């Protein structure tokens, strides 16, 4: 090292980085300052990483430079190429690799220190094992969350009998492995601990339904923060402790806030209420097969309903997002407004795959802000709405959330579209939504179904409204 800084100087730069993180998070929590907040946090990160290069403990640079080059290339490519709709799973992926990094740091430190038995300070070994455990759970759990959102894995809860008992047993085994690894300092226990923690992460997320994924990712985000903080104890590094703890704490609170927005408690999410209730009420999903009927309309009929309405509320959902129909919807809304129709958009707090996701997509399509209404503001409007146009939204419009206590989504706040005079639902087929629950709205006499890909259907509506 030609130009090494003292540990004190480096710690001062870590403090500066920590302040940047605090200011960044603060600014990220207000719409006007959010973007600058992200930049401030990134500057803090650049300071911490930049000054770490000057740490006198570093002997070789080629390894980290190679790793950073590879990581930067992958990071830039995936962040740039990902579609806005796939954003949630990308966050899951980035979170998972962060957790994996914390676990790997712990494993490498264990390997470096363990051979000289007794050299591992007792508080460091505790932090090491915690970092390995939580980091691995976060890694594996995030990968499963990614798989579910990417639809590589089924979004429905995957459950098997005795699952919770198996998870509890596995967790107990992990604690035993942790104690063995900590007391004997033999690598084999650490390897088993890492493998068991990966399995636990998989089993933790598999039984959770796709609709709860945002809450799970937020929780795993907090986990990775804690894993990073404990890696900071292992390496006696303030930057890791500050950054990791800030994320651990704010991530935990964010998880609770998100759960509250969806009216789901954390325990409810984690211990598979969606899966359990669906199993407990086998009649619920099958009911549609016997006798309930729905009404299908043509695009032309639907267009006439829209064109001659006074008030239309558009309810966008994930189906709109996957079909990339936001621009076509904007065209349709413009066309209707030119005919004097009052058009509003109703945004459910969890429309899309994550809170705020739909706002991003509609902003991308240049939909004016004043037309976007939150659930609380739009719900009183539905009784005097002529047509509610539901585009690829399902669970957030399901009246069962208000009226059927046995339903897994009972109590979740919904958009009361069923109070509108007419409801037009654009949907690919009668298949149930992401949560796997049937929607009685579709069998309501005031509801018309228009089947097909959301973008194709909206384009047909645009053409038909022009002709009307």
């Amino acid at each position, binding site marked *: 090292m030609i130009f090494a800084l003292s540990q004190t100087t480096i710690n001062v730069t870590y403090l500066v980085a920590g302040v940047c993180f605090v200011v960044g998070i603060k600014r990220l929590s207000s719409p006007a300052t959010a973007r600058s907040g992200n930049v401030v946090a990134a500057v803090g990160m650049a300071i911490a990483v930049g000054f770490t290069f000057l740490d006198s403990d570093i002997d070789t640079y080629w*390894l980290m430079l190679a790793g950073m080059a590879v990581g930067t290339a992958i990071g830039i490519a995936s962040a740039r190429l990902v579609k806005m709709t796939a954003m949630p799973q990308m966050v899951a992926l980035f979170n998972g690799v962060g957790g994996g*990094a914390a676990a790997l740091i712990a494993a490498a430190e264990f390997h470096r220190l363990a051979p000289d038995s007794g050299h591992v300070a007792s508080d460091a070994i505790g932090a090491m094992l915690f970092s390995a455990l939580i980091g691995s759970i976060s890694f594996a759990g995030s990968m499963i969350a990614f798989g579910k959102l990417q639809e590589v894995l089924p979004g429905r809860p995957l459950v098997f009998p005795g699952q919770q008992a198996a998870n509890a047993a596995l967790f107990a085994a992990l604690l035993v492995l942790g104690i063995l690894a900590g007391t004997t300092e033999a690598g084999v226990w650490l390897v088993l601990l890492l493998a068991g923690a990966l399995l636990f992460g998989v089993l933790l997320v598999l039984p959770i339904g796709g609709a709860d994924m945002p809450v799970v990712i937020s929780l795993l985000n907090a986990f990775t923060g804690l894993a990073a903080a404990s890696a900071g104890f292992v390496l006696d590094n303030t930057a890791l*402790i500050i950054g990791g703890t800030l994320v651990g704490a704010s991530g935990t609170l964010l998880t609770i806030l998100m759960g509250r927005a969806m009216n789901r408690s954390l325990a409810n999410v984690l211990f598979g209420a969606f899966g359990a209730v669906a199993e407990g009420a086998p009649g619920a999903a099958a009911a549609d097969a016997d006798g309930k009927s729905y009404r299908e309309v043509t695009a032309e009929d639907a267009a006439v309903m829209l064109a001659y309405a006074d008030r239309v509320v558009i309810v966008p959902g994930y189906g709109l997002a996957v079909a990339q129909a936001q621009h076509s919807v904007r065209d349709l809304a413009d066309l209707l407004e030119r005919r004097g129709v009052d058009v509003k958009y109703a945004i459910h707090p969890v429309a899309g795959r994550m809170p705020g996701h739909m706002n991003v997509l509609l902003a991308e399509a240049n939909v004016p802000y004043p037309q976007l209404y939150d659930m609380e503001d739009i719900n009183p409007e539905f009784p005097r709405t002529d047509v509610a146009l539901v585009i690829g939204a399902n669970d957030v419009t399901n009246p069962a959330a208000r009226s059927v206590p046995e339903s897994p989504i009972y109590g979740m706040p919904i958009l009361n579209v069923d109070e509108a005079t007419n409801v037009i639902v654009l949907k690919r087929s009668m298949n149930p939504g992401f949560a796997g629950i049937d929607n009685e709205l579709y069998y309501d006499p005031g509801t018309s179904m228009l089947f097909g890909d959301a973008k194709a259907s909206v384009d047909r509506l645009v053409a038909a409204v022009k002709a009307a």
Partner: protein
Amino acid sequence: MSSTLLTSVTVLVLAAFLGFELISRVPTLLHTPLMSGTNAIHGIVLVGAMLIAGSADSTLEQVLAFVAVVFATINVVGGFLVTDRMLEMFKRKPSEGGDA
């Protein structure tokens, strides 16, 4: 408890309280970007991965450290870029109206 450890624990406890206080009033609209932004911040493990990589002496440690650096870098770079892309959407004014 050594004084270094005590200092670290002090930092941890204060950072935890700060983390809770910071985001107590956040609109739903910003939940996803905020999650993504904090996600990038825990990429600070990169600093730890760098320190490990800089002093790794066995092949196994080098492999572990290399993968850790790659992972952590993806977390940092990808995390901040994706957050910026999300927030970019909010910045655009409705009147600009460029056709996309």
